[in-house]
């Protein structure tokens, strides 16, 4: 059969090469890519996920039985209704004036059971509880606020670290190539340390509490922020900088008057994103004891208090939504 090239040659036209979109090479590549994906998917239990999920779906419509669905229903049944009230045994409280209880709170009589290991028996005892209807909600909200504060201070310290490092890590403003490489390396180092791992170490150093979390956040995100900042400085338009420096202004002044105004909007957007991200991350940092709402979450989870856990999750969810709303508003204003 004559190819297009043959015809072209016969007619004496110029011999230009045609091309095919799909070649044996493409097929071979796709085949190997598929094999690789299949192997990797098996390693990460993707097959199990597919099987279990479809089992759960089938079970939901009444066919067969599924561990996944059972797990979900078990959590669900224990999580609802959400727990907003707090109950404290009166005997554990000091300075309670029964005539003047806190607002909306009341005394409830109940039965507390105690287990005796020696005799292997349960003894039941009448106890009085002080019930505060939204006591637990208040506690969770306060912890959420602490979490937000952690995110805020993490961001502030991260800016304080990343601002000078970012300038030193920008190729065109770094005083010396050695300084440039050191600061770039430093930023990469900060970026490469996951918050949870850093927080583990900092809890060892500073003890349990928010300070470990704040510093962990600051260290990780300063690496991210510093890199963004350095890249933005490097990519700022060169013309105005040249104009000012050829008039004799020193590089810090040039930085202040041409580069900063240019990078500011992008930079504010980065900082906002980092702030949001820090708050979200701060909610889990408590799991290793670094303060915030995560500490309460982990504690309640370990006690199987799923109704309390559900309250915490709800508050985290609402807080993240609200923050995102405000940060969106702020972004629309600044850009």
């Amino acid at each position, binding site marked *: 059969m004559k190819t297009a090239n043959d015809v072209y040659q016969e007619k004496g036209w110029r011999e230009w090469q045609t091309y095919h979109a799909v070649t044996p090479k493409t097929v071979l590549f796709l085949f190997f890519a598929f094999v690789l994906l299949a192997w990797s998917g098996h390693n990460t239990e993707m097959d199990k996920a597919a099987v279990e999920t479809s089992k759960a779906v089938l079970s939901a419509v009444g066919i067969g039985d599924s561990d996944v669905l059972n797990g979900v229903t078990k959590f669900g049944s224990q999580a609802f209704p959400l727990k907003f009230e707090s109950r404290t045994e009166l005997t554990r409280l000091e300075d309670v004036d029964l005539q003047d209880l806190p607002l909306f709170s009341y005394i409830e009589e109940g039965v507390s059971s105690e287990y005796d290991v020696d005799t292997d028996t349960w003894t039941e005892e009448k106890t009085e509880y002080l019930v505060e209807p939204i006591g637990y909600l208040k506690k969770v909200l306060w912890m959420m606020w602490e979490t937000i504060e952690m995110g805020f201070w993490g961001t502030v310290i991260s800016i304080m670290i990343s601002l000078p490092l970012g300038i030193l890590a920008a190729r065109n403003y770094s005083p010396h190539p050695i300084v440039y490489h050191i600061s770039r390396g430093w930023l990469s180092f900060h970026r490469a340390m996951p918050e949870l791992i850093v927080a583990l170490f900092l809890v060892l150093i500073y003890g349990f509490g928010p300070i470990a979390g704040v510093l962990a956040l600051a260290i990780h995100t300063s690496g991210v922020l510093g890199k963004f900042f350095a890249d933005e400085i490097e990519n700022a338009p060169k013309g105005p900088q040249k104009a000012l420096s050829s008039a004799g202004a020193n590089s810090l002044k040039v930085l202040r*008057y041409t580069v900063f105004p240019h990078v500011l909007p992008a930079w504010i957007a980065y900082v906002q994103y980092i702030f949001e991200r820090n708050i979200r991350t701060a909610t889990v940092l408590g799991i290793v004891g670094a303060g915030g709402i995560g500490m309460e979450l982990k504690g309640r989870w370990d006690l199987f208090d799923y109704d309390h856990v559900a309250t915490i999750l709800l508050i985290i969810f609402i807080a993240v939504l609200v923050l995102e709303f405000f940060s969106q508003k702020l972004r629309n204003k600044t850009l």
Partner: protein
Amino acid sequence: MLIFDKVSRVYPDGTQAVKDVSIHLKKGEFCVLLGPSGAGKSTLMNMVNGLVEPTTGKIILDGEELNKKNLQTIQRSVSMIHQQLYLIPRLSVLHNVLTGVLPQAGFWRSMIKSFPVKDQMRAFKLLNEVGLEEKHLTRRASELSGGQQQRVAIARAFMTKPKVVLADEPVASLDPAMSRSVLNSLKTAAQTHGATVLCTLHQMDYALEFADRIIALRAGQVFFDGSPSEMGKEVQIRLYEIERKSLEKQGPIIESDAVSPPLQVSKVKPKDAVS
């Protein structure tokens, strides 16, 4: 005032941009450099503010030879207006003008954008001179029209009380009416402040209209040097041909790209054309 003394420049890749140029500029002169792209106009200008070093020869400003030692002092008495303006888009007009005094401003003061009242008053005066009203002061430079931006650039250039103002094709991107008015502002400002202006232009008719002195360059050498009235028709036609040839080298000429023919140009009377 500004003396180029047998100045040559060879770039590292071997191009001879400027060859044995000797020019003596008087104080307060409005001098236009004409010539096709690659004739060495920009190289000659960049030598004055130290962006390019001459290979041989020397440049003398106010009796002081330009070298690395006094580069910063020289840079402060030389201002530049760039073709692309290089204003800072997100800064206000006032701050853009004030960046003209940035080299002399105190470091910490300038970091918080604080400028002495004296400098602010000078900025107002200059903006007024180039024809910008007070309402534009707080607008961002990017919100202005091309002509207004060019005026801001002129005001910025005169902030430092410069001895020499270098203007690199200041009207390249403007329409004819706006170009005339901007060149007029530049000339008036230069006269008021007694600054020597070295300005490159592509349009010969503007050169004839505004210049005190025209220097035409070809392949790095001075081809014509004199006042507009000394510039005969033959020189103009010759210049026009040079420009056309250099355009042909770059690619096929589309009619609208070509330089306006010299016949129209000669109709302009240089002296009373300033409006």
